[in-house]
């Protein structure tokens, strides 16, 4: 597949659109279908299709495995710390209404933080599983 010019060119052309679509799914999740998990798997599949066509080595240079390990834990930590933040601000755990001056804005912020955590963990985990399987060799 290394010398397949059609695959290389079309992946290069589609890659920004796949990534943009992932971000759209993430940030438009309040109004349309989708959310953190869907955006995470779409961004991970963009990384994976790049790795399939161009090999694992250039992808490892862009997204090394140690970044992925950090992402996997950082997403869960963002989620957990959103809950702790709401507790510090005087609400219950994961009660987003205290995050801003009124309930609607607080909920918006809380959902934004939580979905960001989901996105980071899912992207890191899916790409990490792919690295682990494919980088294994025979």
């Amino acid at each position, binding site marked *: 597949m290394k010398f397949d010019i059609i695959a290389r060119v079309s992946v290069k052309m589609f890659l920004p659109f796949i990534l943009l679509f992932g971000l759209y799914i993430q940030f438009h999740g309040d109004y349309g279908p989708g959310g953190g998990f869907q955006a995470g798997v779409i961004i991970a599949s963009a990384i994976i299709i790049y790795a399939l066509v161009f090999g694992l080595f250039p992808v490892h240079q862009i997204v090394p495995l140690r970044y992925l390990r950090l992402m996997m834990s950082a997403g869960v930590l963002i989620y957990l710390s959103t809950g702790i933040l709401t507790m510090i601000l005087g609400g219950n755990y994961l009660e987003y209404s205290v995050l801003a001056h009124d309930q609607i804005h607080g909920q918006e912020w809380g*959902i934004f933080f939580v979905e960001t955590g989901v996105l980071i963990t899912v992207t890191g985990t899916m790409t990490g599983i*792919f690295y682990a399987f494919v980088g294994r060799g025979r």
Partner: protein
Amino acid sequence: MQSIIGMVLMTLLAVVMIGIIRLRNLFAVVIFGGIYSLLMVGLLLVLDAVDVAMTEAAVGGGLSTVLMLSVLYSTKEEEIRLVRMRAFPLFFMVVTGVLIFATWDLLPLAIADLPSHTHVSAYYLDNSLKDTGVPNVVTSVLASYRGYDTLGEVTVIFAAGIAVLVLLQGSRIAKKKVSRSDSISGSDSVSGLE
């Protein structure tokens, strides 16, 4: 029109399933699995479950097919014929029959005023916009009303990823320590996929 498309997709799903059962070439089975996911995406779109369809397209059609191919790279391509056991299919048929018998006691589908549909989901549908300002009820239920559940799901994904990395990367590090000359470069193994 929708039901016709649904029936056509269901029939194709059944055809693909029979193909997967009958095939012995594992590469073809993996590709048929990808086709199955693609048909499922169409079926979920017909059922108006767009977010599930996106997940199925990315995970079922993309990621798991690639993972299966990479597993295939380290095994043989043909399925080995096992010695046939008579007791196992009988056991399987009996268990399946009992499970199908048990489905008769499940709640009937497509009835709006069942107790399971009138408890909290009616509250979510009525109050989501007022409580959270989010028009998409799925997002408000997942992230806000049921935030604890989603936290648990994210933790499960995290744990699964860590477990896979520990199992597969750990063995690679151990192998590297044994023989340094046996270098495993990633691009080789990827280009070896096809």
